[in-house]
């Protein structure tokens, strides 16, 4: 039973990361209908920026996270302007191919800039705390708390503010949003900025638990796609619930079935769910 609870905590921590990454992906998909295959690369760049700020420039961990979030928001805006805005009337397949191009470029660029070797980001929260008799790494606890806070903050922003309402409106109907006087250009940039910032935040949180390398985003990227499909593409609560569900299935499936297959579980679940519910578990009620 201790094993079960320990794994539950591990699953929730992993789910927080998955949820944050998937949130950014689903936001861009919901508002701009772009399947952004470069999202995992943004996550990776976010981790490197945190690393550079913290280790090379000696800023504190928290300060470095802030820097990474701001820089990535900028990169997100640039991507929207340079790559995706010119493609807004093209078929979705074209945005996807362009995203692949961005992905290749960012991975190669990161290798050139920071080398192919693994990097390690030290965190001030490196200890262990005992929670209900279970030893839990402090960083893991931080991941959970920070992720939940950001998720709540984002949904409040979307529901309670005018800008948030404008984003929601554009998600439902781009042409309609334009008609009622919403600056869709600005909203598109803002959406990309938030999406990339979320990716950077997730990466900065997880980096001390793992290693930073140019390919660190690949696996997370694919899983984020699985999550937003399971949650219903474009659905914010769907992405959060989907993230936690997938992580728990992976961790517990790894525990009680076989760890070799745990990386495949995500995709097997996806195939089974879509076979029975072709539009995902939580289809957006438009």
């Amino acid at each position, binding site marked *: 039973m201790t094993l079960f609870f320990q794994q539950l905590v591990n699953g929730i921590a992993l789910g927080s990361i998955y949820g944050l990454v998937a949130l950014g992906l689903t936001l861009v998909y919901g508002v701009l209908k772009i399947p952004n295959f470069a999202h995992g690369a943004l996550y990776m760049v976010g981790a490197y920026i945190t690393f550079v700020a913290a280790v090379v420039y000696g800023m504190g961990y928290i300060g470095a996270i802030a820097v990474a979030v701001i820089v990535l928001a900028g990169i997100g805006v640039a991507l929207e302007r340079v790559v995706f805005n010119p493609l807004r009337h093209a078929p979705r397949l074209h945005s996807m191919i362009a995203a*692949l191009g961005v992905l290749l470029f960012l991975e*190669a660029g990161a290798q050139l800039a920071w080398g192919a070797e693994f990097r390690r980001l030290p965190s001030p929260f490196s200890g262990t705390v005992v929670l209900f008799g279970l030893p839990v790494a402090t960083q893991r606890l931080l991941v959970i708390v920070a992720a939940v806070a950001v998720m709540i903050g984002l949904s409040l922003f979307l529901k309670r503010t005018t800008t948030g309402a404008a984003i929601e409106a554009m998600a439902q109907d781009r042409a309609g949003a334009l008609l009622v006087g919403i600056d869709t250009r600005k909203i598109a940039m803002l959406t990309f900025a938030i999406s990339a910032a979320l990716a950077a935040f997730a990466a900065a949180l997880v980096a001390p638990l793992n290693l930073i390398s140019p390919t660190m985003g690949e696996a997370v990227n694919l899983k984020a796609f699985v999550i937003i499909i399971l949650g219903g593409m474009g659905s914010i609560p769907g992405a959060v619930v989907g993230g936690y569900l997938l992580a728990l299935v992976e961790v517990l499936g790894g525990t009680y079935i076989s760890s070799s297959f745990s990386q495949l579980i995500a995709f097997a679940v996806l195939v089974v769910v*879509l*076979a029975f519910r072709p539009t995902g578990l939580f289809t957006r009620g438009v």
Partner: protein
Amino acid sequence: MRVPTTRILWLAALLAALAFPFLTDNLYFLSIVITAFITAIAVYGLNVLVGETGQLSLAHAGFFGIGAYTAGILAVRFDLSFWLALPTAVAVTAFLGFLVGMVALRTRGDYFAIFTLGVGVVITGILDLWEGVTGGTDGLIGVPPPTRIGPLTFESLEAQYYLYLFCLALTILAVRNLSRSLVGRTLLAIRNDEHLAEAIGINVGRTKRLSFTISTSLAGFAGALYAPFLGYLGPSVSGLVMMFNMLLYLMIGGAASLAGPLVGTLLLMAATQGLLAFEEYQLLILGPLLVLSIIFAPTGIAGLVNRIGQRLSDRKTKPGPSAAPSSPSPKNRARPSHAPPHAEAGN
């Protein structure tokens, strides 16, 4: 007037392809071109789906892998002749493709794309983990080259070249006839407007399943040719890198055109080999190149060449209003060049 030009050019291409081994004794060039031929067959299969029906399947490389492994395992573990392994591999892939299609085609648009992505990842995972049969991460070693048939042997790379060229020509002919047939027109109708197609009495579901099965069989066919050519198979033959490469060849070459997949595959393979010399810079160049080409030449090289050609012929026949672009050829009317294939959303 256009049909003969097209014929002549295809014929010239065929002649050039036939003469190629006599022009170079460079086995590296030969093997690159062979790889391009085999990959092009799979890309034609992808085109049946993406170009003709507007559905994006990301499981295509997975089926390529199934074909390759079926042929490879039959040859290595059961000593089956290539000429029996090849049709078996195609049949197995077609059958599995049919089964997957039954389920996958219940989803649409992006859901279909990601669903098939999942299928592709699972296929690669199975190839990787089912060690007893597939050889796991190490792969399947020692797939023999195509066995002799009658007086023909395929020991040398030149002989293999002609075999694969023949297979490619066969594929192109088949795809051409398919798109001209009633089935082809039905597919086109579905791509342009699924609901309208349904309304005029087309059995949309059945037609889509048929095209999915044809598409996967071509992937399996290409895979089954790839195994004896390479002599070695690893799970990466069905991996995401392979998948994205095929998609790029198709989109850069130009989807929904007959020459697009072949030219796209040849050109991009040559380009990647050329960029290899840049080592870690290669993707730094290829990435932006992709973005630029999808923004500025969304219909691929096919569309680009066509546009330039049209402009040139406009200039030549300026005074005559009949040659103006406002009156496109019958073929252009059937498939307007400014309407690229759609990966349409379901809603």
